[in-house]
């Protein structure tokens, strides 16, 4: 029975650095307020002409290179995004073409900020079932397209970027490298994070989302550990969606995972929705905080409300 594992990953951040002071010129806020309440020091904004597909392509290329594969080895492309400029053609088909991937299965997946973990789960399932051999999974967002720049409760949080991973089969006799997904939704609370219609801007009930995230998600992550046969103590790195540093630290504390094992890319990346988990993973690798062969715990959550978690072996 084939298992699945992550072969390589990579991230892309746009060039433009936007500081808290920059945003304090737009709305009534301050560097101190943003750092203490959200944890962000700076974030990146895509150029006006830079698209979700552009960012997805950049991250995708890095992940393929990191995996040691060629584009021609990829037969499935899944792009998790909730901010594409157009509904069609899909970002996945566009990016596949640009990367020189030949006729892969290609689809976009919208599970908002939970998207990357959903997509890794879907890719792993496809590889195990034999529907694909090597899947390129990308989380790519241009959240700035959907911001109300007069709403200081949201425009200081969200940012742009992309991250990607290649999922492939385990070798003969190799143990499973992507644990079973624990995913779910709370549609009764869907009204708490919304982008209305085709032209709406993102609004959220931040306090309610904070309450939900700090209470409902630690059990999900724990269950993902249990299903993967690891304890939180064995988790070498915890990579939660980078929604808010207070949420990240509250969940890590509930799981008993030491702060130095917790991804905190939000500090320089902001909240990039479905790009945040793979970007945070890439940042931890750059910081030398990942240990190849050890289990890492991913947890993504957000609008829907949706959530997903799985344990993966660090490549």
């Amino acid at each position: 029975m084939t298992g699945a594992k992550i072969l390589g990953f990579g991230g892309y951040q746009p060039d433009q650095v936007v500081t808290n002071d920059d945003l304090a010129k737009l709305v009534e806020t301050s560097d101190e307020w943003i750092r203490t309440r959200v944890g962000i020091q700076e974030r990146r904004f895509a150029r006006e002409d830079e698209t979700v597909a552009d960012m997805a392509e950049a991250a995708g290329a890095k992940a393929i290179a990191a995996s040691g594969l060629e584009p021609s080895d990829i037969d499935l492309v899944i792009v998790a995004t909730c901010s594409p400029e157009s509904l069609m053609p899909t970002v996945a088909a566009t990016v596949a073409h640009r990367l020189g991937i030949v006729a892969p299965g290609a689809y976009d997946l919208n599970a908002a900020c939970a998207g990357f973990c959903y997509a890794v789960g879907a890719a792993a399932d496809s590889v195990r079932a034999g529907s694909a051999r090597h899947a390129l999974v990308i989380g790519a967002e241009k959240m700035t397209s959907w911001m109300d720049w007069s709403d200081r409760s949201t425009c200081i949080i969200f940012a742009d970027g992309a991250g990607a991973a290649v999922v492939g089969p385990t070798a003969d006799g190799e143990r499973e490298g992507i644990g079973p997904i624990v995913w779910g939704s709370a549609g009764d609370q869907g009204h708490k994070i919304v982008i209305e219609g085709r032209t709406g801007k993102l609004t959220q009930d931040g306090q309610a989302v904070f309450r939900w995230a700090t209470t409902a998600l630690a059990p999900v992550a724990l269950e993902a550990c249990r299903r993967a046969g690891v304890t939180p103590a064995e988790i070498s790195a915890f990579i939660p969606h980078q929604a808010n540093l207070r949420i990240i630290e509250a969940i890590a504390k509930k799981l008993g995972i030491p702060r130095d094992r917790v991804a905190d890319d939000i500090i320089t990346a902001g909240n990039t929705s479905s790009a945040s988990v793979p970007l945070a993973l890439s940042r931890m690798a750059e910081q030398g905080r990942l240990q190849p062969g050890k289990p890492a715990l991913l947890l993504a959550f957000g609008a829907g409300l949706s959530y997903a978690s799985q344990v993966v072996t660090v490549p």
Partner: protein
Amino acid sequence: MTDQEILAGLAEIIEEIAGTPADEVTPEANFVDDLDIDSLSMVEIAVAAQDKFGVEIPDEQLKDLKTVQDVVTFVSKSS
């Protein structure tokens, strides 16, 4: 539960969540001005209080609870 017991339980929670020493948690203490506790920490305190005292403190109610005594009174009245 007596008010004293609620206060002691609340002081424990506040120490755990905000790091404020329990002896600084006096009834008159204002969360924002005296204890430097913001609205996000108030949510965490409310959730912990729900676990400890079995009393739900919804978000809409939280903004009216400005002092430690406000919370003690709320918990006492609801239990």
